[in-house]
């Protein structure tokens, strides 16, 4: 059996085993080892690509090129982190008697199923399969959002599903229109929807149909990415989802949706030049960054703060892609990589703080968490420093690369606005976290707060933090090579 198929089958099998009952220890072992094996297979597939070029399966319905290989590695990594943290998360909730047998089955089944869907998106070359895979990510994650079965989680899950399905309806229409734009030149059968076929036929696509299709597809997949103004599901879903699922949404889903956006953008660029879809992405990206500004500055909830930060970062990636050229593409992909390393630390430490205080609202958590929960507080501060783009960490450099590409291109005005927004966002995010962590300690010790213990969750968070710091300074050579290969796909000459 081919390596690529195995990479997809392992998480699926893990989900199937996790979905049935069984002793707790066994289920935990299956989840972690299954996701570890999956990550290993992702790495193996990526290195097979580096050694021997694109890998194809099922008449190229699945195909690993540079971009897909990078996605595999990033999403496999996040999947493993989320699995390990998830085991610890369930244990914590179990001690408080919050977990029923049904919830445990749901959790152990849905997390690997979500990882499977994300990996399927990452290797889809066929636009039809791509759509189906994105729909699967939505279906796998909706019950994770509703996991705690509170009033607010049901509301968040409903918004998430209805908006997500609407977005997918748009994306489907976009796919149909792209297919129609080829006016039968793509042939019949499964291969007709292959992205590689589209790229070959690009110069002869019907312009009006193509433009309409690109708009619908970008809005549709942009909804899943959380680009403004289709971002409204994000803060609710992030607040309600358990942190391990939140990480998969904030990093895995974001990467996967940006992947879809990229594929559509590349078809459009090859057909009618970079201005049309690039301009659209630049506008959506800029709007996302700007929308995040007020909501971060006046935010009242820690996890919603992270959601707006994620809207900001997907906006930054869209701006990088929109500015285009090799530099813009490289900046966007580099940013995605650094973001993938940094975001889990923020989610894990914020999730721990929220669990200890039984709420993620700033008011309930109260200022001065450094005294009550030193480890997670320090980790949250560290994550803040990395994620807001402070030097000397990587995100600073990826942002500089995108800014330089913007000023070098003909986007001076947009880039200036972007730069101003970045500065305000930096201040706003740092202020919010700083106030929470370093604020004055309460006069009397809080009795309603569970004391912090160094458990599996915090252990995972520390490991993730160490990795994020290392990645911030130094990316392994082969990972850099993957980013370059992906840049070739995205920014290569048409």
């Amino acid at each position: 059996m081919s390596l690529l198929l195995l990479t997809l089958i392992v998480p699926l099998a893990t989900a199937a085993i996790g979905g049935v009952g069984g002793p707790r220890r066994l289920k935990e072992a299956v989840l972690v080892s299954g996701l570890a094996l999956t990550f290993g297979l992702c790495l193996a597939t990526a290195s097979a690509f580096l050694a021997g070029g694109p890998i194809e399966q099922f008449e190229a319905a699945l195909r690993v090129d540079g971009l897909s290989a990078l996605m595999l590695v990033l999403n496999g990594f996040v999947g493993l982190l989320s699995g390990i943290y998830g085991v610890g998360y369930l244990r914590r909730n179990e001690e408080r008697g919050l977990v029923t047998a049904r919830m445990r089955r749901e959790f152990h089944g849905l997390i690997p199923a979500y990882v499977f869907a994300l990996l399927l998106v990452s290797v889809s070359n066929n636009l039809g399969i791509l759509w189906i895979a994105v729909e699967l990510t939505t279906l796998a994650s909706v019950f994770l959002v509703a996991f705690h079965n509170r009033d607010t989680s049901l509301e968040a899950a409903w918004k998430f599903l209805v908006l997500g399905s609407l977005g997918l309806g748009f994306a489907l229409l976009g796919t149909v229109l792209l297919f129609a734009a080829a006016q039968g030149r793509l042939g019949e059968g499964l291969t007709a929807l292959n992205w590689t076929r589209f790229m070959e036929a690009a110069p002869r696509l019907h312009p009006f149909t193509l433009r309409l299709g690109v708009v619908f597809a970008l809005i549709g997949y942009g909804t899943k990415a959380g680009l403004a103004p289709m971002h409204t599901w994000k803060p609710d879903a992030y607040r309600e989802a358990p942190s391990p699922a939140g990480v998969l949404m904030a990093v895995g889903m974001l990467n996967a949706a940006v992947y879809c956006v990229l594929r559509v953008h590349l078809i459009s660029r090859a057909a009618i030049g970079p201005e049309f879809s690039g301009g659209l992405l630049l506008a959506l990206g800029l709007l996302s960054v700007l929308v995040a500004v007020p909501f971060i500055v006046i935010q009242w909830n820690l996890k919603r703060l992270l959601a707006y930060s994620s809207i900001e970062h997907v906006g930054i990636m869209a701006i990088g892609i929109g500015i285009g050229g090799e530099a813009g593409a490289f900046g966007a992909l580099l940013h995605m990589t650094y973001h993938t390393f940094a975001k889990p630390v923020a989610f894990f430490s914020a999730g721990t703080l929220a669990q200890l205080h039984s709420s993620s609202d700033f008011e309930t958590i109260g200022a001065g968490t450094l005294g009550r929960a030193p480890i997670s507080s320090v980790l949250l501060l560290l994550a803040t420093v990395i994620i807001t783009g402070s030097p000397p960490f990587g995100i600073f450099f990826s942002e500089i690369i995108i800014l330089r590409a913007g000023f070098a291109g003909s986007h001076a005005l947009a880039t200036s606005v972007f730069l101003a927004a970045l500065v305000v966002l930096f201040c706003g995010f740092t202020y919010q976290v700083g106030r929470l962590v370093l604020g004055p300690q309460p006069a009397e010790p809080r009795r309603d707060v569970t004391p912090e213990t160094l458990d599996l969750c915090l252990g995972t968070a520390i490991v993730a933090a160490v990795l994020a710091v290392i990645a911030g300074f130094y990316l392994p050579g082969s990972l850099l090579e993957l980013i370059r290969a992906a840049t070739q796909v995205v920014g290569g000459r048409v």
Partner: protein
Amino acid sequence: MSNNLLVLSAAGMLVTAFLMVGQKALFTAIRLYGAQSWLLGVVAVTIALADDRPPLFVTAALTAGLKGLLIPWFLMRVVDRIGIRREIEPFLNVPASLLICLALTVVGYRVSTGFPEGARGVAHHVIGVGLSMLLIGLFLMVTRKKAVTQILALLTVENAVFLIALGITSGMPLVVELGISFDVLLAVLVLGILVHRIVDRFESMDVSRLSQLKG
């Protein structure tokens, strides 16, 4: 002959969409959706016969079976079990809604003129109806409060996308269509389960009550 049938069924779909807008009884709205899906099946069969494209028969059978029978049956069961039969007063009253939908239909037809002339002259009508239904579905979604009506609005958008696909390309590759159909079925199941949970918690399926999350 086949062209007439094609235009007739496409127009019929548009009529069901309009009736859905003017309708408050949930059972009737679900039946209208079922009828709409059958008409979509007829469109697929007509194109299959006229253009001699056998794979479209499978599409037609799937549409009729899944969207014409299975999904309406499931939704009726949901409505039956939660015991709420009528849509409450929508955010916009019925006459105003119908007028807006009329305007949306004009917009849909206007956009459809931009496409290249297909092999059949009727393709224009099919695409026009599809785009109009898409807009009406979106309109339903933002103006209605009941969870089941919102699901029906989503499904109308789905049908509209398929109608456009049929009009413009004579359908997508079969494998993809199969996958998409089952995904839609799954999505409806998930939505149904979620409606159950919402009703259990809130003793209402009024989604306008889901408004605690802000900022």
